[in-house]
């Protein structure tokens, strides 16, 4: 198993993508799911919103030079709804996104983010609008997400509290977000539970 990686802080500039209910088909079109590994996913986030049929760029924050190098994604409500494709957070992560701040996230997307070690944290509508405006107007603003303190700080002395499910926060802080080894350690317990389930023996009685 790979070494335990604890994630407590993410720092960097931010890139805002406005809009509620941005689904995973928009984050990564299905045709890229035909690739047999995640290796190239970083080339594809928001592909059809960034490029037309001829491959010419369209206006989109992910094409905008002023956001180049950003590591924190700002979004609105229900981000990542739809398909369970892990390719969506994989594409964002491999593009350079190491944390996401938004008003809310769809359930499977949020779970996938934790599995990849990407904190996805929430705050209110008004605070989000303020942050998005700041990132748009002063794109070189540096933000620091501190999971231990549950705060996003920026500027010289500004900070806002952020929300994250406690289990996700612990998994990231303790490094158990890469969960297989932790789960595998309980294999004997799993076998005991399985043996008690009547369907596991075909209801042999």
């Amino acid at each position, binding site marked *: *198993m790979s070494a335990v990686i604890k994630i407590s802080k993410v720092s960097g500039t931010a890139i805002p993508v406005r*809009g*509620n*209910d941005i*689904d995973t*088909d*928009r984050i990564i*079109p*299905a*045709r890229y*799911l*035909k*690739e*047999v*590994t*995640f290796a190239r996913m970083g080339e594809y986030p928001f592909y*059809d919103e960034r490029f037309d*049929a001829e491959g010419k760029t369209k206006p989109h924050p992910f094409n905008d030079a002023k956001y180049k190098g950003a590591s924190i994604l700002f979004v609105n*409500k*229900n981000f990542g*709804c*739809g*398909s*369970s*494709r*892990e390719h969506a*957070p994989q594409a964002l992560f491999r593009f350079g996104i190491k944390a996401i701040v938004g008003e*809310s996230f*769809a*359930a*499977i997307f949020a*779970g996938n983010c934790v*599995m*990849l070690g990407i904190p996805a944290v929430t705050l209110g509508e008004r605070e989000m609008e303020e942050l998005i405006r700041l990132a748009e107007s002063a794109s070189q603003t540096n933000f620091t997400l501190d999971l231990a303190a549950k705060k996003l700080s920026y500027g010289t002395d500004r900070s806002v509290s952020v929300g994250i*499910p*406690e*289990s996700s926060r*612990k*998994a990231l802080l*303790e490094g*158990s977000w890469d*969960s*297989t080894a*932790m*789960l*595998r350690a*309980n*294999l004997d*317990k*799993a076998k005991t*539970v*399985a043996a*008690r*389930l*009547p*369907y*596991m023996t*075909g*209801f042999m*009685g």
Partner: protein
Amino acid sequence: MAKSSGRTLYDKVWESHTVDILPTGQTQLFIGLHLIHEITTAPAFDMVRENGFDVAFPERTFATVDHIVPTDLRTRPFLDSQAEELTQALEKNVGEFGIEFFGLDSDSQGIVHVIGPQLGLTQPGMTLACGDSHTSTHGAFGTLAFGIGTSQVRDVLATQTLATDKLKVRRINVNGNLSDGVYAKDVILNIIRRLGVAGGKGFVYEYDGAVVDKMNMEERMTVCNMSIEGGALLGYVNPDATTFEFLKGRRFVPKGAGFERAVSYWSSIRSDPDARYDEVVNMDGSQIEPTVTWGINPGQAVGISEKLPLPEEFSDPEGARKAYQHMGWKPGSPILGTPINVAFVGSCTNSRLSDLRAAAKIAKGRKVHPGIRALVVPGSTGVKALAEKEGLHEIFTEAGFEWRAAGCSMCLAMNPDKLKGREICASSSNRNFIGRQGSPEGRTILMSPAMVAAAALNGKIVDVREYI
């Protein structure tokens, strides 16, 4: 099973499958059945191999191919080299780890959420996981069915467990009776319209009420299938006589005394009459009319006799405006009469025998409107055979529909069945997201299979009640 009052099915199945409480506070749940397909699994197997693990319970994992397979020419190698590569990767992985595989040459092949129930693999009181968001479909059997990502597929392969948080339960009672021409699809579209596409966040949906009681298993699957479109990770219906009757005699269901013991277990995990719910929502099924979507998410839906809503009527007017911008329609105009280019009956939502029967009933003796491309794609090779046995394929082909082989087809644009340009598709699938059906400019109108058939015959959106 220990009996104690006041618990939901969700509570009971959760408890009996709990392996441990993890240091994070999450519960480690045993997964009774793992279904896999060609798309979301290859990196999961790679990670299992790289970490030197094996597959913990290979006999509890079953594989098929559905997303990427062509539904016309299925000869190998596929014309699409990526489809061929992914399929070969799955074939190699199932061979290496000893997993039962329903491949293209199997009469059990099909959409993973169609074959699980059809084979009797999906059973009440079980936990189930699959790397696909529409895994909620299996909840129709009183199964806790989790749609998961690839890293979680890795975890289920290596440990047969998932780390997950317990959710709240919202009971949704659909009371009254459905009118003729109103189907399970209309019910779930109305539930999502009312509660919102994010309304189910943090909840499991338990569907009940007279309308759900009367539904057959295929209709319940349609409802549970779209739980995730309402933001709920899981949806379920308590198992009853309809469930047991459906399961009896299926390949993976025990026979004789074993079946009796199974029914007794399945009955024991029903929600108690005095179960505690975090929320209860009541809806009147009698008020539901044939329903279609007008926008770019499944909650943007209207009854067929309604006019398109004004953006200002929504809590997110900007979202509605974006939908109108994509669809090219005007608020206040009727949805009835909207021209279509393509008609698609299929997908894990609506591709089962009763769906095909409902569409065939409308199509019988009529003709697809000139210029309309109309596809009927059975959900599984087994459904296809049953439909052909009763002559449905002849009804469809005589009417001018293409009769295809089983697969996900035009629901998600990972195979040759796609929209082109600005085409508008009347679709029995589950998502009307921008670009979902393969063209970034394409447009999807979700509806029941009968409504799709009626739209195909007329070249425009019509009220199916005029055809039954």
